[in-house]
């Protein structure tokens, strides 16, 4: 009886804390369906009518559609290059020890340790100085993509090297005896086997890049190139879009939804990877 009460007590605490997490999020979603006056008058109430036009305003009038597209382009372009070149490097580190390979691997992992802001000023000038004619890497989607690839490599190489190490050793030997080349073994045997690792790396980097703010803030000043986080931040801080609260809430929901969907589908995998990264790193 006492233990039953205790169990109920603990569960009450756990639910209460879940509410602390959920209430601000629900408030955001509810507000995104409310009219302007309703947002002021009844912050705790449910929307009396679903004002879908908030989403239309955010998407078109406030320009979220454009920022969404920019984010999609940069995120996808980064992943398309990052995953193959990260996997190639990770495979060599995991399977082909050479003189200095430990040091180089350590240098890659070091990138997970130091803060991004250590490099932000030199990086800003580097991007400004790298030019092809009048085309500069600064303030272009290509430039940001290259920076994103470089800064995502440490985590990617770390996770994938761990993956390749767990694959059985005699596999590549057998394939080599059959006459396959080093790269043949990698693309035809190892990479397909590492698919779960590639998915994990893709999800993690995808979420991180979709959300990224600081690098984009410094390297992407012009409105045409703004990614989603930059765009929504600019609406609130600079343009003071607060005359249309409903659209702002809708904008926040639009930024969050893709992440929420991916997170809920892959939540167990995300847990595992975060833990592995945290405890081994």
């Amino acid at each position, binding site marked *: 009886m006492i233990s039953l009460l205790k169990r109920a007590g603990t569960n009450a605490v756990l639910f209460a804390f879940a509410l602390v997490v959920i209430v601000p999020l629900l408030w955001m979603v509810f507000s995104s369906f409310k009219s302007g006056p309703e947002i002021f008058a009844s912050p705790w109430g449910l929307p009396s009518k679903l004002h879908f036009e908030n989403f239309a305003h955010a998407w078109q009038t406030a320009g979220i559609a454009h920022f969404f597209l920019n984010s999609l382009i940069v995120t996808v372009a980064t992943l398309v290059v990052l995953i193959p070149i990260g996997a190639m490097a990770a495979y060599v580190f995991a399977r082909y020890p050479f003189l200095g390979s430990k040091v180089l691997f350590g240098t890659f992992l070091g990138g997970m340790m130091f803060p991004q*802001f250590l490099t932000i000023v030199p990086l800003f000038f580097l991007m400004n100085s790298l030019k092809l004619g009048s085309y500069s890497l600064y303030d272009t989607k290509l430039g940001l993509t290259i920076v994103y690839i470089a800064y995502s490599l440490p985590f990617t190489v770390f996770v994938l090297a761990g993956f390749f190490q767990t694959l059985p050793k005699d596999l590549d030997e057998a394939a080599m005896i059959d006459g396959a080349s080093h*790269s043949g073994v990698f693309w035809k045997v190892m990479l397909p086997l590492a698919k779960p690792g590639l998915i994990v790396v893709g999800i993690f980097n995808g979420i991180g890049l979709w959300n990224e703010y600081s690098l984009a803030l410094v390297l992407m000043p012009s409105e045409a190139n703004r990614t989603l986080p930059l765009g929504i931040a600019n609406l609130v801080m600079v343009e003071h879009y607060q005359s249309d609260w409903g659209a702002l809430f809708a904008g926040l929901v639009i930024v969050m939804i893709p992440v929420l969907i991916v997170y809920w589908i892959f939540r167990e995998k995300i847990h595992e990877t975060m833990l592995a990264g945290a405890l081994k790193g």
Partner: protein
Amino acid sequence: MRNRGRTAFIVTYLAPATLLYGVFVIWPVLQAFGFSFYKWSGMSANKTFVGFDNFKQLFHDSVFWQALEHNALIFLIGGGAILVIGVGIAHAMQGEGRLTKVLRSVYLFPNIMSLVVVAILWEFVYDPNIGLVSSLMRLFDGPVRAGAPPVDHSILGSATKALPAVIVTFVWFAVGFYIMLFSTGIRQIPSEVVEASKLDGAEGFHQFRKITLPLLWSVGRIAVIYLVINTLNVFALVFLMTQGGPDRKTEVMLTYLYEQAFVNSDYGAATALAIANFVIVMAVSGIVLRLTRKDPAGASR
């Protein structure tokens, strides 16, 4: 047979990643140390070597110390709250049922969200006109007297409330990760140890203090290191919620760095601050690791 083309393979497969990483990460890191010895406003002609002047200036800069103090407060108060809540919730959440898994996913979700969304959402939560918090504050206003000035419900605009408000947001955002860390730590405790302690009459809080807490030591160390790194490197949350204001009452190291570099164009000073920040993070982490080296679980046996 096996060594055919091995070297060529290693070189070509490492090259793309190493090149990108070297040029865009390692090279700027090395450059940062160089930059910090120059007075520089961006035009290359105006670059003058000043030795340690940028660091001396930083040392005498009251804004830097104010910022560092706010970082320290976020670490001590926010980090402390995260440790207490993290261990407490993880302890209460024992077991691997469906419910536990769902709850864990809920707690972790803010950590997966964009900091931009978190910062703006909480800016709205604290908004004096539409916010959830101010609407609660209004309940305690009492009757309005004629001629009396309206009650001030601003939070992020208040010199005393802004920093606590930012800290609450930080805890809300980060705590799920630490709950996850601690629940894994608890699950790693061998069940025989827990059973044996129960036979010895250890229960509830007693069991928690004597068994769970000491055995969480190594996970706890990792958690504190993460807190050091994350609280000393707070940027987006403060930058978006308060821009360091009002009157620098929420300024942190990295918002000040951003201002020095991209508002004041004092790139040498900004880089010196970046290096100071890095050194402080490493030093505090080192001190934490050293102080916590003795494992009380081992010592008490």
